[in-house]
């Protein structure tokens, strides 16, 4: 029974990683850039949701919508100002700009909301389920997070597989020049990717802070790196991979804390990542691309 409780704890934090990883993977798969500012967009989303519920007193669902709108706009602006001018140059240049954006968002958040941490009120209101006479507890957040992450995963898969825009995204991801020749507006497609990625970040922010209530300007950065690791474990660029990687990472983290050592759990998580990449160099569900000359 005990092991089940830890499994649930692991899945709970893993599902949050999964949602963040979905945003990472989306942007990486199509724009081919490591967007290290993703974690900070998540933080902004959480703050917006916090402000809407706590200062305006509006219901949770409105706060999520508001967070999504603000983050989408923010994502588009960041893309247009900081990333678009660098398209076609070294991917490293974009990486550094993304880090600049990350610093900017963190410090702007501190100026606006202050450095004191805020305690995020969970959007989930129903009581936790208690099984086996209280030995096993499943909180509402776990269920909601898992349901939403699965919904997002299915939605994204359908979107990229069935819609015109989604197909254009895949084409851009496959071969940017060829896509352009086929009449696809590459710039617009990539901006769209950022818009979707940022809207996902808003949802991830709300769910992250519902599970882990501390909200401060640096809230997004560490889960951001964890989620990036998760995306790589699953095979970066792969949508189901991000989901699998996220859950796996959460479970590994929790189990290594419980059964091996709380002190060394960070090292264990990253060691597992390295092992996985050695066996499957493109991640669990990633495509192995044959390089051509």
């Amino acid at each position, binding site marked *: 029974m005990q092991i089940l409780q830890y499994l649930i704890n692991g899945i709970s934090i893993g599902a949050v990683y999964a949602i963040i990883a979905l945003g990472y993977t989306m942007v990486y798969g199509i724009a081919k850039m490591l967007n290290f500012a993703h974690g900070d967009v998540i933080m902004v989303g959480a703050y917006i949701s916090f402000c809407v519920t706590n200062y305006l007193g509006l219901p949770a669902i409105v706060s999520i919508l508001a967070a999504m709108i603000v983050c989408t706009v923010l994502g588009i602006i960041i893309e247009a100002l*900081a990333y678009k001018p660098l398209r076609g140059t070294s991917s490293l240049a974009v990486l550094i700009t993304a880090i600049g954006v990350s610093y900017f968002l963190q410090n702007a958040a501190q100026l606006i909301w202050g450095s004191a941490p805020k305690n995020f009120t969970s959007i989930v209101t129903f009581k936790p389920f208690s099984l086996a006479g209280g030995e096993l507890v499943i909180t509402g957040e776990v269920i909601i997070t898992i349901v939403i992450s699965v919904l997002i995963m299915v939605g994204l898969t359908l979107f990229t597989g069935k819609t015109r825009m989604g197909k254009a995204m895949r084409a851009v991801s496959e071969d940017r020049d060829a896509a352009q020749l086929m009449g696809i507006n590459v710039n617009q497609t990539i901006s769209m990717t950022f818009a979707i990625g940022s809207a996902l970040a808003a949802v991830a922010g709300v769910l992250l802070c519902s599970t882990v209530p501390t909200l401060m300007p640096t809230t997004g950065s560490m889960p951001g790196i964890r989620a990036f690791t998760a995306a790589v474990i699953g095979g970066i660029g792969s949508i189901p991979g991000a989901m699998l990687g996220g859950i796996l990472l959460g479970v590994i983290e929790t189990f290594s804390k419980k059964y091996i050592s709380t002190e060394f759990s*960070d090292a264990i998580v990253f060691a597992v990542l390295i092992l996985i990449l050695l066996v499957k160099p493109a991640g669990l569900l990633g495509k192995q691309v044959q390089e051509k000359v």
Partner: protein
Amino acid sequence: MKKIWNKLWNNKNTRTNLITYLVVIVAYAIMQTLYSMGILSSAMKGYMVPVCAYISLAVSLNLLVGICGELSLGHAGFMGIGAFTGIVVAALLETSIPNEILRLTVAMFAGGTMAGVFGFFIGIPALRLRGDYLAIVTLAFGEILKNIFGNLYIGLDAEGFHMAASAGKVQLLEGGKMILDGPVGATGINRLSTFPMGFVLILFTLFVVLNLINSKEGRAIKAVRDNRIAAESVGINVTAFRMKAFVVSAFLAGMAGVLFGLNMSSVAASKFNFNTSINILVFVVLGGMGNILGSIISATVLYILPEAMRGLDDLRMILYAVVLIIVMLCTWSPSVKNVMQRISAAIRDKVSRNKKEAGTNE
């Protein structure tokens, strides 16, 4: 004599290298003169050694990122190995080598060697991967190293050397001293690093890196960067060259770590985190990939810039971020470059027209 000089000067590579050395030496001479004249502020004096360490780190990372084309996000890990090894070695040798410069040199080589050895063992799995996957594995190793340092306890007492990976396991006799104390890190370090030693380290780093770049091996490494498969097909042992660059880079980062660590009175494992790795990477990318002089200048400027902006209080870090983004756009973006060129052309145009008009008026 003149002939040899001309020959050297006309070779583009040699000329760039000479300029690089010259800039470093002149900068050192100026700083040392200012220092001895006593007109440097305390803040300025404080920057000198860390800047030397960061220059060496940036140059060594440039070997990996710029020359070799491998993105590494774990450079701070090697810096940390060097720093902690150097601190422990310096503490152990306190009585046997009383000469501080000698002790620092020994510590530097010990730290460099340790980092190089780790680089080799990390390189075996890491270099099987490429591109962003290599980057994430280096990030992972950096985090693992940081986690391990944060749990390392090393003490020294009359009975000798004690080491453990958990608190309370190291029980020292009366008069013993903890060199490394888990998350607190190393405290009460005897500060051995000096600016002249930093200068020597930069020269050593430049010597190693520039020689490697301009050797036969360096050309092979660049060939691997530009087209791995083509390089492989003409018989270049790709893995061996990548490994060599990786180990050399780790070795130099380790030495720089020793200089950095022995310049502080306390160093915690958390210093060698992802952010520090990224900072070094920013120096490299902003200075220009493969451009060694660029790394030196950008490490200096970017280290001092946020310090010089201290007067701005709340807005300091946010403005630093903005400056970073703008400089990246100005140096890398084709469209921004275009606009800048057009503006400068327009100004030139206007100036020449004004001159002409002035001419006709006469």
